[in-house]
């Protein structure tokens, strides 16, 4: 009787939380550990009446992923910052489980976006690899920390980061790519790429490497803890203080977050918080959404979208704080 239960159940009868979604991890024999929004608890199969993942829930997760993915492309950030609060606040997932699912979509987005971009030199591989040392160290630490701190602490942290992201988005509402002198000496870490819009070559030199490393470390840390990509932390820093053009910073960051998120996702996976059956609709949704996003979003009303989403993130932040007080 040691068959592993399928990934997600809705608990019909468990003294803790009837009717809430829960991931079940087999412990031994026919004991399983139910991970519910209210924390972990061991229970025997005998006490749980279980209903597996149903099409409605799968479709909901897929839809949420698609919206988050499309928004991510339109706003130039990953979809994680929207997907995580939806999974926790609307569907009642524990934050760790939501973060783990979101990390898997972050990896998928990073891989598919970077695969499309590879070859046009927008991605600065050397600089990216250098910063990855900091992001992966940060994500390793964040992943371990996430297992140690209370759910409510993570919720409050998400609240804080959501506010920060909202303000960064508002502050950069009119930001455009800056043309840099193409004859500049790019140094060992700098780069050069052809810009299609202006038809010119953009060359840049990296400044303030320690700051870039520090921002990457924090980004990696937050990424693992909260299930977001972390581009929203790195890209503004690289662009504003480290001399990197916005496009190159975004492309390089997009490549980096794949490895960063993998570090965190592996830890969640090992602890049973990352269930393939839940990741599947989310990953497919985000892929569909970001594909649609690149084909639809033509900068039309990105400004209004940014305002709207900043407001939404402020609401998310409040809800996360309220949730952490339960």
């Amino acid at each position: 009787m040691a068959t592993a239960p399928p990934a997600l159940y809705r608990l019909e009868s468990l003294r803790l939380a009837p009717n809430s979604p829960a991931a079940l991890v087999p412990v031994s024999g026919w004991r399983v550990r139910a991970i519910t929004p209210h924390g972990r608890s061991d229970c025997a199969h005998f006490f749980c009446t279980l209903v597996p993942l149903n099409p409605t829930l799968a479709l909901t997760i897929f839809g949420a992923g698609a919206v988050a993915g499309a928004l991510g492309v339109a706003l130039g950030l990953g979809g994680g910052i929207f997907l995580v609060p939806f999974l926790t606040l609307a569907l009642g997932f524990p934050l760790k489980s939501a973060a783990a699912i979101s990390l898997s979509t972050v990896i998928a987005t990073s891989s598919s976006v970077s695969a499309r971009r590879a070859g046009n030199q927008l991605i600065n591989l050397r600089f990216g690899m250098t910063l990855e040392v900091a992001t992966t160290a940060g994500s390793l630490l964040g992943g371990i920390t996430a297992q140690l701190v209370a759910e409510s602490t993570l919720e409050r942290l998400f609240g804080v980061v959501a506010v920060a992201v909202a303000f960064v988005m508002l502050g950069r509402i009119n930001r455009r790519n800056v043309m840099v002198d193409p004859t500049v000496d790019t140094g060992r870490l700098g780069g050069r790429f052809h810009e299609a819009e202006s038809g010119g070559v953009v060359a840049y030199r990296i400044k303030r490497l320690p700051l870039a490393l520090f921002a990457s470390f924090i980004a990696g840390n937050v990424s693992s803890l909260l299930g977001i990509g972390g581009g929203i932390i790195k890209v503004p820093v690289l662009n504003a203080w480290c001399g990197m053009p916005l496009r190159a910073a975004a492309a390089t960051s997009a490549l980096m977050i794949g490895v960063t998120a993998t570090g965190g996702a592996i830890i969640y996976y090992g602890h049973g918080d990352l269930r393939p059956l839940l990741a599947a609709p989310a990953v497919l949704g985000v892929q569909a959404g970001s594909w649609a996003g690149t084909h639809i979003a033509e900068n039309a009303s990105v400004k209004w979208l940014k305002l709207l989403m900043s407001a939404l993130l402020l609401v998310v932040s409040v809800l996360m704080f309220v949730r952490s007080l339960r």
Partner: protein
Amino acid sequence: MNRPSPARLEVMIGEVLRFGTMASSALFAIGLVMVLAGYQSRLAQALLQAALIILLATPATRVIVSIIEYFRERDWMFVVLTLVVLAALAGSVVASHL
């Protein structure tokens, strides 16, 4: 400091990422459809599991490919840097069992 064949590594990384994304998405889709259609079979679970593993392995493979390419170019500085990144990922694997 000139940059030896940056395009080559970029193209190889692109191929790795493209293959990884397509393989994992396809397996996720097949596994999910099977589960939703009512086949709670061992095969469906295995496909979903494989999809997730491929997803996680893709960025790691990209790092390994970079190490090999920098090694080939005798760019020791970047061999070391990418090895550190790989070590951090290995650290995650260790931490996932703690």
